[in-house]
């Protein structure tokens, strides 16, 4: 917008872009669950047909600093962007949710669903020359279980893994405590990718600074807070079906530049100092779409959308009517349109559209209705006082809204808007923005509403949020303090049900129940967005919207 453009040209460009965005949306909707496909811009389309060029460096601006490059210890999505380039998994999850071979060529699941036998590729070597084999797989998964590893998210992902048996050099059998439909999907996640056992033993704690995997790129250097460099693994020949190029990547190097300040990151992309930058805020997306030199890649994340959990352990939110009042009073559409300017999709269900089992029928179900909300609160005996805040038995109707800092994805702003929206129905919202979500929310359960999201590959993710057995908060309750035996059983069945259609139905039931009982207020689906120079071609995404650079090349 700082550059001058002739009026006609820009309008033309705009229409083209809009048309494509619209058609892109339409096509994703048509293909059902494949929302996570890259949204190609016109030249990108053209370029796919152009022959890839080998060589070049891709500079890619990351939004925060990775914590570690040890996949098993990392807890940050940003780390996964780099981890993904260095490490491979046994299996890959395709956009439609199906599981495809990767480092494992084929697998068998035992009848009781408690053991998985994988046949492994025999031509794979780690970057340090260590051969990839059944021992390596066993080492990796055992490593995650080992407390000394201080595994983070990977420990949760690998559950209910119990042990491994090396059948032969290239066959490994994984034993589970209980059967799990989510297990294979989870195995596709970068956080449980395979690291070199030699390197892990050699570096110990410091593997995170010296990662060695089997991935398309080899780790070169990590200048903390500045950049991470990976270079082409020339021997690479075992890419997942997610990408077209099965051999070594075209790029010589990918340089992840760490640029936490939005303005800096986007400015660098705009001025061409980096070829690509991630996490583009909505207001800039609109502007960048108009930039002739840039293109946008966008992939919706999977799992749980950003959801506001209403804590039913706090009165009056244990009352269905009170929660329904909130549901009716909060104008999610307005929030999403105002804050995300149409670049984020509104969420309707506890699951994102791309996730298996997503119940599309929920869409358009909840509509803002202030009268209804007011009426519901009246029914509960809350009467508006002089200051417009409702009172019952001398107690004001307040809502303690806890959100974390820093203001990720404008979530604090959602709180601000909801504060104003609920004022209209006489609810005083006390917004608490805290750095210490852990102690306020997860230790002392001191919140009426708290918002969260989770990137996941399987609807099993619902368990830790809605199953009464989950006790992530204070060891006593799940986030909404939701206890519903029916929902519990559907979730339990969903984990083991082998029939896809039946499983889908189970999860649909769960979603319907949760929305009907106003357990939560789903807000938005987060799209992972990359702005890149138009010379950058072929950025792909895995099922969780992490970028893949196997097909990427730079046009001259």
């Amino acid at each position, binding site marked *: 917008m*700082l550059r001058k453009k002739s009026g006609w040209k820009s309008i033309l460009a705009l229409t083209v872009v809009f048309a494509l965005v619209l058609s892109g949306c339409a096509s994703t909707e048509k293909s059902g669950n494949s929302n996570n496909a890259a949204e190609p811009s016109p030249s990108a389309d053209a370029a796919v047909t152009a022959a890839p060029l080998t060589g070049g460096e891709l500079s890619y*601006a990351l939004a925060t*600093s990775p*914590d*570690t490059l*040890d996949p098993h*210890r990392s807890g940050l999505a940003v780390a996964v962007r780099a981890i993904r380039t260095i490490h491979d998994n046994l299996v890959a999850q395709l956009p439609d949710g199906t599981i495809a071979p990767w480092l494992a060529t084929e697998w068998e699941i035992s009848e009781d669903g408690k053991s998985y036998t994988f046949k492994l590729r025999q031509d794979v070597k780690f970057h340090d020359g260590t051969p990839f084999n059944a021992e390596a797989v066993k080492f990796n998964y055992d490593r995650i279980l080992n*407390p000394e590893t*201080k*595994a*983070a998210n990977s*420990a*949760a992902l690998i559950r209910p893994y119990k042990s491994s048996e090396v059948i032969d050099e290239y066959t490994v059998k994984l034993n589970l405590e209980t059967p799990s439909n989510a297990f294979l999907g989870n195995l596709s996640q970068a956080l449980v990718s395979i690291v070199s056992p030699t390197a892990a033993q050699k570096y110990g*704690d*410091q593997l*995170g*600074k010296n990662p060695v995997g089997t991935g398309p790129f080899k780790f070169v250097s990590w*200048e*903390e*807070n*500045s*950049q991470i460099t990976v270079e082409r693994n020339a021997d690479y020949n075992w890419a997942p079906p997610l990408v077209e190029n099965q051999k070594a990547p075209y790029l010589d190097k990918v340089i992840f*530049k*760490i*640029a*936490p*300040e939005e*303005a*800096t*990151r986007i*400015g*660098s992309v*705009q*001025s*061409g*100092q*980096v070829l690509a930058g991630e996490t583009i805020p909505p207001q800039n997306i609109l502007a960048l779409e108009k930039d002739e030199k840039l293109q946008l890649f966008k992939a919706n994340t999977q799992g749980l959308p950003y959801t506001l959990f209403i804590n039913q352990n706090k009165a009056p939110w244990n009352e269905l009517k009170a929660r329904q009042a909130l549901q009716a009073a909060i104008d999610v559409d307005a929030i999403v349109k105002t804050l995300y300017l149409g670049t984020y999709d509104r969420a309707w269900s506890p699951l994102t559209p791309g996730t298996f089992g997503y119940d599309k029928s929920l869409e358009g179900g909840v509509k803002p209705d202030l009268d209804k909300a007011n009426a519901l609160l009246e029914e509960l005996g809350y009467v508006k006082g002089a200051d417009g805040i409702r009172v019952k038995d001398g107690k004001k109707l307040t809502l303690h809204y806890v959100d974390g800092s820093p203001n990720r994805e404008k979530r604090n702003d959602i709180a601000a808007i909801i504060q104003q929206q609920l004022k209209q129905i006489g609810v005083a919202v006390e917004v608490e923005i805290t*750095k*210490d979500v*852990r*102690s306020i929310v997860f*230790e002392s359960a001191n919140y009426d509403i708290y918002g969260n999201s989770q990137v996941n590959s399987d609807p099993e993710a619902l368990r830790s949020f809605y199953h009464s057995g989950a*006790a*992530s908060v204070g*060891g006593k309750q799940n986030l909404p303090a939701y206890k519903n035996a029916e929902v519990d059983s559907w979730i339990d069945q969903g984990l083991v049900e082998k029939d896809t259609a039946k499983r889908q139905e189970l999860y649909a039931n769960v979603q319907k129940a949760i929305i009907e009982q106003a357990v939560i207020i789903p807000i938005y689906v987060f799209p992972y967005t990359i702005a890149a120079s138009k010379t950058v071609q072929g950025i792909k995404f895995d099922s969780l919207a992490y970028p893949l650079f196997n097909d990427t090349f730079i046009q001259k």
Partner: protein
Amino acid sequence: MLKTVIIRLFTSLLVILGSLVLVFVIVYLLPGDPVLSMVDPSTVSPEVLASLRAQLGVDRPLYEQFASYAWKVLHGDFGQSILNDEPVLPKIIAHLPATLALTAASCFIAAVVGIWLGVLSAIHKDRWIDITARIVGLFGISMPTFWSGILLILIFSITLDWFPAMGSDGWKTLVLPAVGLGIVGAGFVVRLVRNSMLEVINEPFIVTLRAKGIAEKLVMYRHALRNALIPALTMIGVLSGELLAGTVVIETVFSRQGIGRVISDALMAKDLPVVQGVVFFSAIMYVLINLIVDLSYRVIDPRVRRSQ
């Protein structure tokens, strides 16, 4: 002279020791269980938690913890990052050059711009030049650095494309952050030099110089400025301390590597060993810079030198 140096060294050591205690106590007083922020308590067994506590030593009394910490620090062991087990000292050392370069460059800019404007301002006291120079200087200290930093990026990186907006490799990436931080320093220096110059200009010896028929330029730049800079020199220590602290913000804005980023990240993540290490390290730097300034002051100023 030697005596003074030794006394100064000795007090510096005491101050460093004091700051070691302070750093330790501050970190100790930070609320929240560091162990719980390291791991997910729902996935880790109490035994692991206990072993982690023992490993960190947080289960022992304060003085014992301090003694062992001090002992380790004495041996160059600042502990390990809670987040990724990285040893703290190498981490600091790795980040130090970028921050030092930034601090030095911004100090340089602050000095050059600040002295220049300060002298102009003092010579033309109460005229337009003075008022302009003061306003310019005051703008430097009145603008939030993150804002001026972003404005710099907007103008010189995005619009004009003269300098990169981010990174810490090469002199080009140093320019904008150094300017962003330097204008803050320049603001302080302008005020300092102006006041100092005004004081010196009123000294009787300036009249003598003029009475001797020395050219006004020489009177100002050779004599007055030299006298004015000597007291200003003492402020370099304070200034570099402030600039060092300013890197916390500016390094984030310009996505630079450096100590400032390390400390702010560590504080957010309650990565206590890193916090301790960086704060202590910056205290040492502060003390060292002040020591050097103090000693060189004694060498440069014949008045102080005489009184030794």
